[in-house]
C-alpha cells in the first residue's frame, strides 16, 4: 500500500485503452512519490547501496544523509534521529509493512543489513497522514525489487576486512514475462576485536575489544506472478537472525549477549483497472529478542486494502484501511493490541508545474482514538528558464505516536493511561536545478516542528514509569547539493549536505527541570557530509567524509561530547569479465585517518579498517 506498484500507463494514460498492459509494468513509484507533495524525500537505488554492501542501514544513514545515528558501538544498536527527534519518532517500513518493534516502538538499524535490501527511501518530517504511527521525525522505506523478463541471473559476493570481518552472500533469480523469483542468502560476521584506548584504566593502555562479536544470517525470498493482464500477486519473505556480544561501555566488564530474530512476510495482490489499482495486502512480522536469558517476543498480523483511483487528468485519490493485530509476549507481560486505521489521499494537479496533496488518517488502537492527522503539501516548479529551474516544496501536517506496548504494559511501571504523542510541523524547501556541462542541484529546506505529550520514563522509587510530560520544539535547516560533470574522459560527481538542527525542551518535568530551553541529549546541532566520486572505463574512486558536531550526554547539557569528522576512501573496478562472468572488485578504507572518536559517551568505536570485496555474477 505504501510502496505501491504503479503502472506506467497511469502517468500517461492513453485515451482508448481498456486495460493496463502488464508487460509495461516496470516502473515502480511508491506512494512516497505519488502523494508526498511538499515532503522532502531522499532515495538510494541498488547501485548506490552497493557501496555499502556488508554494512548496515545505520552506516549509510549516518554517512550519506542528514539523519544522526546513535551508535552504541561497532555493530551495536544504532537508532535514527531525524530532525532532532528520537528513534521512536521514525516509522520504518519494509515493502509497505511497518516493522518497528511494537514493544519498543523503534528499529535497530544495525540489524537491517544493506545486503537484504534493494532500495531505500527516506522521508523527512511529519507524515502521520501518509504513513501513520511514529512518522513524526521522518520515515524509512525499505524494499525489494521485482523484475520480469530478465531470465536467469545469479551471483556470489565475498568480503574480507579488518577485525575479523567475513561476509558472504549469494543470490539467484529467474524471471519470465509472467513469473519472477529471487532468492538471497547472506551471512555477516565480525569479530570486532578492534584496538581502542581504554580511558577507564590507569595509564589509558591500548586494548583490544574482546566482547563485541557480531554474526548475522538471513534469507530473502521474492516471488511475483502476473496472473493475467489485470492481476498480479507479489510476495516477499525475510528472515534475519543476529547474535551479538554486547559491547560494554568503557569502564564496565559486562558480558551481555543478545539475539534478535525477525520473520517478515508480505503478500500483495494487485488488480489493475483502466484508471485505478486495487491493492490487497496481508503480512506478518515476528520479532524475537533474547537479552541474556530474558525473552521478549511479539507478532503483528496485518491486513489492508486500498484503492488508488485516477479520477481525471487533474485529480487522483487513494482510499485505504488497515487492521493490525499485535500479540506481545514480553518477559514481564503478555498483551494483545488491535488497531484499525483509515486513510485518504487526494492529489490535485493544478498545472504541469503545480500540484497539491491532501492526506488524512485516523487510527484507533484498542478502542482509543489517536489524534486525527491531516497533511497538506504542495510542489511548485515556479521558474523554468532554458536549462534552469526552481522548485518550491512546502507542507504542513500532523503526526502521532501511540504509546508502545512497553510504555503501556511493562510490569512494573507501565502506564495504560498514557496519551499518544502529537506533533505539528511545517516545512518549506527550495531547489535550484541547472543542467549543462555541469549539472547542479542545490536545495535548502527549513522546518519547524513541535511535539506535545512527549513520553518520558521517570524513576519513581525503585520503578520507572512513563508519563506524557515534555514538550519539545525543533527547527532547522537542511542543505543538500550535488554537482556533476566531466573532466576529459573522467566523470565526476560531488554531493554535499549540511544540517542545522535545534531541538529544545520547552516544557520539562517540573519547574526545576534543568533541560528546559536546552538542546536534546545526543542531538548534534551541526552535521555535514560530502562525497566525491570519479569514474572512467569501469574504474571508480570514492572519497567521502562526514562531520558530527558537539552533542550533550544528558538533557541538561553539562557534559558535551566533542565533535568528530571521519573520512572513507574506496576504489573499484567493475568491468572485469571472465568468460560469461562479471567480476566486480572493490577495496575500501573506513576511518582513513584512524580518528579516535565516540558517538555516545564511553562507547568505543573502531579506528582505521580495510575491506576487500569480490563478487562474481552471471
Amino acid at each position, binding site marked *: 500500500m505504501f510502496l505501491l506498484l504503479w503502472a506506467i500507463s497511469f502517468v500517461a494514460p492513453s485515451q482508448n485503452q481498456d486495460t493496463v498492459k502488464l508487460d509495461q509494468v516496470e516502473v515502480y513509484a511508491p506512494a512516497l512519490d505519488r502523494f508526498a507533495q511538499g515532503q522532502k524525500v531522499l532515495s538510494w537505488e541498488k547501485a548506490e547501496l552497493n557501496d555499502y554492501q556488508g554494512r548496515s542501514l545505520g552506516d549509510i544513514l549516518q554517512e550519506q544523509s542528514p539523519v544522526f545515528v546513535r551508535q552504541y558501538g561497532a555493530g551495536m544498536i544504532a537508532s535514527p534521529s531525524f530532525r532532532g527527534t528520537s528513534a521512536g519518532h521514525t516509522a520504518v517500513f519494509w515493502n509497505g509493512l511497518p516493522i518497528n518493534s511494537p514493544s519498543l516502538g523503534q528499529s535497530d538499524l544495525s540489524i537491517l543489513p544493506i545486503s537484504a535490501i534493494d532500495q531505500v527511501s527516506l522521508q523527512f518530517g511529519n507524515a502521520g497522514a501518509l504513513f501513520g504511527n511514529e512518522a513524526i521525525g521522518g520515515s524509512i522505506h525499505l524494499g525489494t525489487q521485482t523484475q520480469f523478463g530478465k531470465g536467469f541471473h545469479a551471483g556470489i559476493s565475498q568480503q574480507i576486512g579488518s577485525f575479523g570481518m567475513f561476509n558472504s552472500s549469494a543470490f539467484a533469480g529467474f524471471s519470465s514475462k509472467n513469473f519472477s523469483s529471487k532468492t538471497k542468502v547472506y551471512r555477516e560476521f565480525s569479530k570486532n576485536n578492534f584496538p581502542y584506548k581504554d*580511558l*577507564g*584504566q*590507569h595509564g*589509558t593502555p591500548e586494548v583490544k575489544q574482546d566482547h563485541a562479536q557480531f554474526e548475522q544470517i538471513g534469507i530473502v525470498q521474492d516471488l511475483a506472478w502476473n496472473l493475467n493482464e489485470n492481476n498480479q500477486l507479489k510476495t516477499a519473505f525475510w528472515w534475519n537472525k543476529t547474535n551479538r556480544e554486547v559491547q560494554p*561501555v*568503557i*569502564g*564496565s*566488564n559486562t558480558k551481555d549477549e543478545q539475539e534478535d530474530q525477525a520473520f517478515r512476510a508480505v503478500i500483495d495482490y494487485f488488480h489493475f483497472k483502466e484508471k485505478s489499482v486495487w491493492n490487497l495486502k496481508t503480512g506478518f512480522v515476528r520479532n524475537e529478542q533474547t537479552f*541474556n*536469558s530474558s525473552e521478549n517476543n511479539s507478532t503483528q498480523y496485518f491486513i489492508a486494502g486500498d484503492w488508488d483511483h485516477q479520477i481525471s487528468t487533474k485529480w487522483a485519490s487513494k482510499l485505504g484501511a488497515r487492521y493490525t493485530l499485535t500479540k506481545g509476549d514480553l518477559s514481564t507481560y503478555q498483551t494483545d493490541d488491535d488497531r484499525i486505521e483509515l486513510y485518504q489521499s487526494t492529489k490535485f494537479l493544478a498545472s504541469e508545474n503545480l500540484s497539491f496533496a491532501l492526506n488524512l488518517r485516523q487510527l484507533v488502537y484498542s478502542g482509543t482514538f489517536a489524534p486525527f492527522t491531516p497533511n497538506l503539501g504542495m510542489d511548485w516548479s515556479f521558474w523554468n528558464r532554458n536549462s534552469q529551474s526552481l522548485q518550491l516544496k512546502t507542507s504542513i501536517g500532523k503526526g502521532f505516536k501511540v504509546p508502545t506496548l512497553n510504555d503501556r504494559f511493562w510490569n*512494573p511501571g507501565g502506564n495504560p493511561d498514557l496519551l499518544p504523542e502529537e506533533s505539528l510541523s511545517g516545512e518549506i524547501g527550495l531547489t535550484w536545478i541547472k543542467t549543462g556541462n555541469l549539472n547542479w542541484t542545490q536545495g535548502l529546506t527549513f522546518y519547524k516542528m513541535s511535539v506535545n505529550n512527549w513520553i*518520558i520514563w*521517570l*524513576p*519513581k*522509587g*525503585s*520503578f520507572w514509569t512513563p508519563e506524557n510530560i515534555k514538550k519539545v520544539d525543533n527547527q532547522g535547516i537542511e542543505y543538500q547539493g550535488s554537482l556533476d560533470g566531466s573532466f576529459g574522459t573522467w566523470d565526476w560527481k560531488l554531493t554535499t549536505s549540511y544540517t542545522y538542527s535545534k531541538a529544545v525542551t520547552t516544557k520539562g*518535568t517540573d519547574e*526545576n*527541570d*534543568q*533541560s528546559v530551553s536546552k538542546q536534546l541529549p545526543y542531538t548534534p546541532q551541526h552535521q555535514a557530509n560530502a562525497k566525491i566520486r570519479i569514474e572512467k572505463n569501469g574504474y571508480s574512486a570514492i572519497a567521502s567524509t562526514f562531520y558530527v558536531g558537539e552533542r550533550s*550526554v*544528558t*538533557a*541538561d*547539557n*553539562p*557534559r558535551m561530547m566533542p565533535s568528530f569528522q571521519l573520512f572513507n576512501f574506496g576504489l573499484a573496478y567493475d568491468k572485469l569479465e571472465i568468460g560469461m562472468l562479471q567480476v566486480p572488485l572493490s577495496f575500501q578504507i573506513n576511518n582513513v585517518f584512524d580518528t579516535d572518536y565516540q558517538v555516545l*559517551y*564511553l562507547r568505543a568505536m573502531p579506528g582505521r579498517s580495510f575491506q576487500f570485496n569480490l563478487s562474481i555474477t552471471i
Partner: protein
Amino acid sequence: MKLNQLLWASALISVSFACSDSGEEKPLGKYDNGILIMNEGNFGTNDGEVYHLNQNTEELLPNIFEAENLRPFAGLLEDIVLEADRLYLVANTGKVEIVNPADFKSLGAVSAELDQPRSLAVNGSKLFISDYGPYNASYATPDSYVAVVNGLDGGVVSKKIEVSNKPEDLFSHGNFIIVAGSEENKIEIIDATQEVVVSTIDLEASPKQFYAVGNVLWIYAVATDEVIFYTVNLSSLTLGNTYTVPVANATSRIAFDGDDEMYVLTSSGWPDYNDAVVNIDIEGSSATFTELMTGSGFYGIGYDHNLDQVYVSNSNGFQGNGTVTVLSETGSVVRTFEVGRGPSGFLIY
C-alpha cells in the same frame, strides 16, 4: 592526626565512607579541605565523578577526577574511602581507582578480577575489597567475596575470600576485617593475615554501615519497619547493646553527627515514593526520631560538623545532574545547588 580528629573524621564520613585509622601531618593540598561530593553516575553511561565543595566560600569544582587526570572516571562510583593517605574510589562497574587526596592525581588502580566492588578497607599493606561477585542467570549474587590486594597503590587480586551474599561496608581493626553481610543479615570477621573468615555474628536486620567511636563499633542495620543499631566491643569482637528505632522504609544511607545523632534517608516505595530525612537521637537506652524534610528522589546524605549542617542530595531521576540541598540541624533549607549525575554521598573533612 590526633585521635580526636580521627574520631571526628570517621564520624563525619557519611554514607558508606569507611574511616581512616592512620595518617600523618603534611601541607594541605587543593582538595584536602572541604567536602567531596560523590556522584555515582548513570547506569550504562559510567559517568560517575567527584565534585569538590569549599563550604565556606561555596566554590564548587566539578569533575575533579577528569580535571586532574585528563581521562574520564569511566565507572559508577559506589564509595570513596580515605585510608592510608590515599583516596580509594570504588566503582561498582569493576575497579578501584586510587588517588592522592591532596591533588586527586592517580596513584594506581585495581582493575582486573573485580566484579561489583562495594567498599574497601586497609589493613597493614593489604587492601580488602567487598564485592557482590557476578550476577547469575536470576540476578542473584551467590558468589560474593572480599578480594585481597597486596599493595596500598593497587595491583592484582591475590585472593578472593568467600563471604555471605552482598557484602557492603568493611571495617579494619587490629588484625581483623569486619564485613557487613547485607543480604543474609550477618557480620563476618576476617583474619587479615590468614585471609579467612574466622567468625560470624547473626543479626536481626540487614547491616549497611559501620561507625566507630573509641573502642565501640556501631552497626547500622535496616529492617522493613525499623532500624537497629548494634554495638560491637572491638576488644572482644562481641555484640553489646541493641537499639531498635521504629523508622520504616529506611535506606542504607546514613550520616552521623558524632554526638549520638544520626540522619537517615527513608523511602516509602510504591505507590507514593515519599522520601524523607529522619533525625534519630539515641540517649541512654532510648531512641527518638523526627522527620526533618520530605520530598522525592533523595539519594545521599552527609553531615558537616564544621557548620553543623546536613547535606541531602537528590538524583533528579538521573535524567541529568542532581542537586544538593543544605539543611540546618533543625531542617530549614540553607541553599540548594547543582552537582553531578546521581549524587550519592559526601566525604566531609
